């Protein structure tokens, strides 16, 4: 199993902490965290991973571009991305077009990158100016760059967007402002796991549902559990080069509580929203052509 190093995968972190995977008879041979969805997608493509909690956009790329046979069996949340800005330099979204603005974003193919394009469309921004000013780096590096005063704005996934607020940045836009019903992360499994072990997939979805419900009912405790899990994973996750950077970015329960309230934790997946996402990233040229969302969805395990 692989998860993203974010509170997007709260249900996985909670299940791991509570021992619910074992309770359901699921024996994980590996449990790995990745800093970005794209890194996790590469691991999926290499064949190392059978189950992943991953943002929908990289999951679609994995299926369409790398031809990896995966299925989305449940959602984990809606929304969970935002644009944070230095309020002294940026007052409105239009200010992003200013020539001296240094804008951070993850690389092409990430969910926040797609949100950036949605923002350009919605606010009729000059695409050339915006894309020219972008510095591509992963979320922890962006937050560190914000802390060092090297960025003026950043498109970030949660919890990184909320962490940026700790360094004087303000949330100018949230994904719900730009992209109604935006699907955040999803639970994906390899097709052969569904074929050969549907019982395992059913258990995974059950655990995910249980953890999602629990997180919604106990937000305070959930933030503490996820904070504890992320801090524990963070030490071993980052390579030596980034370890120092990661250590400077403390993920506290308070930050996570604020961050997690900005997400809507739900296992439900709307096929129309998924289809809209597929069509949109096909329009951006990120996948060769659009395809039917039913090809990548298998929601029969959701109750």
């Amino acid at each position: 199993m692989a998860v993203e190093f974010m509170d997007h995968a709260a249900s996985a972190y909670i299940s791991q902490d509570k021992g619910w995977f074992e309770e359901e008879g699921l024996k994980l041979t590996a449990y790995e965290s990745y800093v970005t969805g794209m890194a996790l997608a590469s691991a999926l493509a290499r064949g190392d991973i059978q189950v992943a909690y991953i943002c929908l956009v990289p999951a679609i790329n994995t299926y369409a571009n790398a031809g990896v046979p995966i299925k989305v069996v449940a959602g984990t949340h809606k929304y969970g991305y935002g644009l944070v800005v230095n309020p002294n330099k940026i007052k409105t979204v239009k200010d992003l077009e200013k020539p001296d603005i240094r804008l951070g974003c993850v690389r092409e193919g990430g969910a926040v990158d797609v949100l950036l394009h949605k923002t350009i469309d919605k606010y009729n921004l000059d695409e050339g100016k915006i894309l020219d000013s972008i510095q591509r780096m992963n979320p922890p590096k962006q937050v560190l760059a914000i802390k060092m005063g090297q960025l003026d704005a950043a498109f970030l996934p949660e919890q990184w967007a909320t962490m940026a607020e700790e360094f004087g940045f303000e949330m100018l836009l949230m994904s719900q402002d730009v992209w109604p019903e935006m699907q955040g992360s999803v639970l994906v499994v390899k097709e052969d796991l569904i074929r050969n072990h549907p019982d395992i997939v059913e258990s995974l979805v059950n655990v995910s549902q249980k953890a999602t419900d629990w997180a919604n009912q106990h937000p305070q405790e959930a933030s503490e559990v996820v904070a504890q899990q992320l801090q524990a994973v963070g030490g071993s996750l980052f390579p030596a080069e980034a370890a120092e950077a990661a250590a400077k970015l403390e993920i506290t329960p308070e930050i996570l509580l604020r961050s997690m309230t900005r997400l809507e934790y739900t296992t439900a997946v709307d096929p129309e929203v998924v289809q809209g996402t597929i069509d949109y990233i096909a329009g951006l040229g990120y996948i060769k052509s659009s395809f039917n969302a039913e090809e990548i969805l298998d929601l029969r395990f959701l109750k």
Partner: protein
Amino acid sequence: MNRLKQLKPGWGIVPVVIFLGIWEMAARLNFTPGQFSFPAFSTVLMEFYYLTANGVLGDSFLSSLVRVLIGFSAGSIAGLVMGIIMGWREVINKALNPIVSLLYPIPALGWLPLLMLWLGIGEALPITIIFICSFFPILYNTATGIRTVDRNYVQVARTLGASDIKILTTVAMPLALPNIFTGLRLEAGMAWRVIIAAEMVAIPTGIGALMMKAESLMRIDIIIVCLIVLAVMCLSFERFFAFLETRLTGQWR
């Protein structure tokens, strides 16, 4: 034997065709280790056509080409001038050689972090990297070429009344040409390798940046298209200078 010689140019393409055939078959029959995606040659060709038709490849190629041409030309001219001066004037050589010897072994990409801080991310960064990549080897080869010219030729020219400039331009430089061209030929290919690496790390446009974008989107076909373009450009640049060398020095070498 004669017939074999006549067939030679055509035979050169046979291994390439066999290689492409094996590639196509291996991909179509899914003979790839693990589960990673491996596109067929025909898929890569189609993607090449698509990227060319929509202008993405052209734009990226042009960005890289302009950087290489400006950086390489500036670095080569500066290297040639400095190399001639150092090769021709022993005093200057003795003064500058320790510095050049210290800086020459630093890989061009080693300068990247420093230049990113000094110049920021813009066109000046890759051009400067290419400049450095070309400057030191061409300076070194030029200076060595001029210093190793047989002194007897220089003495004869001097005895016949030739001025220093005349000796330099008509005796020393032509005799140093093979060395100079070796530097130019090797660095012409190296400039492409370096620009791709620089674009992959720090520059948002060009063939290297297109490769990174393709990597994050897991578009292996686009990565292979870029690698083919890179291979063709390295080879073309090296062959161009090999051709120039043959044309300029072939008659008397």
